[in-house]
């Protein structure tokens, strides 16, 4: 299994920023670039938007806003760099600025605290294996159960799982999209998967 996205990531200042003004006239070359590189990302963008907002209407609005914004700012996209990472960063920023307040969070988490605890736990990682881990039990679960468990994670935790496990971004790409250090991506992702496992195991125990 190989990661599909290994192309160069632009530095932060090449992503569209709020202070930039949209280009009035978009060149034919940029239009072609947008149609070729960005429009095929509609499915991925919708999937990410839905998992962030957990609401179909909000996800639709967020995807639409993201694509219109990306089109208006296409001149600031560096050709040859990772179009998907660029688009996802716009989507993530739009979500934080315009939608996050609306979303009812399943759990409030102090991430720095959680990550600090997790990093100290990671040092004693040998203790992390429990006898509850059974592949067969996991395989018996239906998609809805996994989806419910995933949706019940705090948004920052489900974000890293979506970006890595569904969209195939590397840790470096995720760090750029989320504006966090790679070490934080790693610990947040590992923690998120461990919480997801706990939720699924608790579900099995209850049923």
């Amino acid at each position: 299994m190989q990661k599909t996205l290994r192309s160069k990531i632009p530095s932060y200042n090449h992503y569209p920023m709020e202070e930039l003004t949209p280009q009035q006239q978009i060149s034919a070359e940029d239009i072609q670039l947008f149609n070729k590189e960005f429009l095929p990302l509609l499915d991925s963008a919708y999937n990410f938007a839905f998992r962030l907002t957990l609401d179909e209407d909000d996800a639709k609005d967020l995807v639409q806003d993201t694509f219109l914004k990306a089109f208006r700012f296409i001149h600031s996209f560096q050709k040859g760099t990772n179009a998907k990472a660029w688009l996802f960063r716009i989507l993530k920023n739009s979500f934080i600025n315009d939608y996050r307040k609306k979303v009812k969070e399943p759990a409030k988490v102090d991430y720095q605290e959680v990550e600090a605890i997790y990093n100290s736990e990671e040092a004693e990682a040998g203790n992390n294996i429990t006898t509850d881990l059974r592949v067969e039990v996991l395989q018996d679960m239906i998609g809805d159960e996994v989806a419910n468990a995933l949706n019940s994670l705090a948004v920052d935790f489900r974000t890293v799982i979506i970006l890595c496990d569904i969209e195939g971004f590397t840790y470096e790409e995720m760090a750029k999209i989320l504006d966090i250090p790679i070490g934080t991506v790693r610990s947040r992702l590992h923690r998120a998967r461990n919480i997801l496992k706990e939720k699924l195991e608790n579900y099995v125990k209850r049923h």
Partner: protein
Amino acid sequence: MSTEQSRLQRKPLPECEECIKILQSYLDHETTPEENALVERCLQICSVCREFYEYNKTLIEMVKRLRKTCPEQLAAEIRNKILALQTC
């Protein structure tokens, strides 16, 4: 495999702690060649790490299947809006 062998293989090895620590990064292809070698050595001989590996791998595969696709109507709306911006 004898009971004796399987029992011995469940006993944590000195490498297990490190193996478990980097296993998720290994599954994400984010480990160095040296780390890959350590994990692969451990997975060959330790059933505890193997179980942990299989469980994480299955979980990731199940999450991967949750992908949603963009509703056709939305995709068409966005394409039309972009087209309108392109032609104005």
